[in-house]
């Protein structure tokens, strides 16, 4: 399942605001999964039972598992299994929303069920263009005429490349049409050939440091030439892969101009430009694309 879309799902259903979602995602780094959330997700405990134990924990100095076993909600074996189970990232995101007081455990339980039911049919097959289109439509609320086929396949590859080179712990937000964009640290690359596109990748410098550390598998602690180059490299790599894909599939030949840093404070964008935010725990990146035939 595409765990990245849980955040979009929450936004679309007006469960959280974009700011609240960003905050919950930024807390993922230091959050640890709680036994109660896991037990609820596995259907071993109800939200009420979890709330009850949390209440007892506020009065007695005991661990969650200990109380759950005493009360016969869980067995020793179940606690062991829960502690060692692999769990999807979106579960932790949901738990953060409960910790922030934005939703109750009961709401989380319902949301997880609804989300799973909603996404079940799309059990992620990245090679399947039709599934992906449905996902994009459903979660990014993109109407048919907003993004053409080339832009959609560009986004699909971008999701893959983020997963492959940066990490799967991101949440994409809906593309927003824009005519101008205020720059943080921004890299631009122009694609020419049978198809013309201008692409930008923008992020605050602090975010770029972490982005680059992940991309280059090096520990950067300041915004330097290597960090800048990493952002350029990523965009260049992604656009290059796109060019290869599209030339194989559609016999469309593309040429890339070298990526460059944007010096202006504000970019003036052509018509039909879209800004797409991607929230990572370490910050938000913005991809800006404009496709013209």
């Amino acid at each position, binding site marked *: 399942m595409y765990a990245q879309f849980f955040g979009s799902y929450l936004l679309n259903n007006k469960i959280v605001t974009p700011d609240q979602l960003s905050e919950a995602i930024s807390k993922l780094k230091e959050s640890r999964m709680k036994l109660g959330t896991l037990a609820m997700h596995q259907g071993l405990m109800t939200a009420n039972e979890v709330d009850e134990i949390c209440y007892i924990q506020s009065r007695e100095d005991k661990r969650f598992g200990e109380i759950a076993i005493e009360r016969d909600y869980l067995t020793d074996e179940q606690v062991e299994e829960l502690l060692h189970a692999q769990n999807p990232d979106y579960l932790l995101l949901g738990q953060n929303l409960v910790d922030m007081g934005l939703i109750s455990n009961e709401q989380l339980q319902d949301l997880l069920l609804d989300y799973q039911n909603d996404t079940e049919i799309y059990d992620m097959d990245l090679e399947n263009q039709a599934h992906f289109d449905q996902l994009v439509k459903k979660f990014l609320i993109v109407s048919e005429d907003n993004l053409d086929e080339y832009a959609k396949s560009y986004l699909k590859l971008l999701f893959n490349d983020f997963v492959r080179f940066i990490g799967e712990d991101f949440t994409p937000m809906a593309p927003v049409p824009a005519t101008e964009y205020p720059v943080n640290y921004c890299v631009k690359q122009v694609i020419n050939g049978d198809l013309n596109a201008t692409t930008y990748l923008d992020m605050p410098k602090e975010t770029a440091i972490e982005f*680059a550390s992940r991309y*280059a598998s090096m520990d950067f602690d300041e915004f330097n030439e*290597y960090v800048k180059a990493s952002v350029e*490299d990523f965009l260049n*790599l992604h656009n*290059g892969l796109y060019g*290869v894909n599209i030339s194989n599939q559609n016999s469309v030949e593309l040429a890339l101009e*070298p990526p460059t840093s944007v010096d202006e404070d504000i970019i003036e964008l052509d018509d039909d430009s879209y800004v797409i935010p991607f929230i990572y725990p370490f910050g938000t990146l913005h991809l800006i694309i404009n496709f013209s035939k």
Partner: protein
Amino acid sequence: MSAPVILICDDSILARKQLHDVVERYIPEVTIYEATDGRAAIDIYKDKNPDLTFIDITMPVMNGIDAIKGIKEIDASSEIVVVSSVGTQTELKEAIMAGAKDFIQKPFSVSQIKILLESFFKEG
């Protein structure tokens, strides 16, 4: 053999550093020269005559394919490996036609470079 001389040509400072670090790890006695575009690579090649040249395709001023052609004109026996994030089929074909011996895709793995260096600089 004497200490190898290697030329790394890439417009990305990150790509140069990554390759530089890996090469130095496996061949500590190596001498490495760096160029940021194809034109500079040809100039350095003329001057330093490296044993092996790593070259990117997409670069400003002069791209990798034209640089390979330029280097081959100076020295037909030059050993050149393309290191590029991607290339279209046409670009790759052109690079091989121009005389590149091998192609490594970025981001490369350390073991890929190690195997390549061993094949070029094996003792005996």
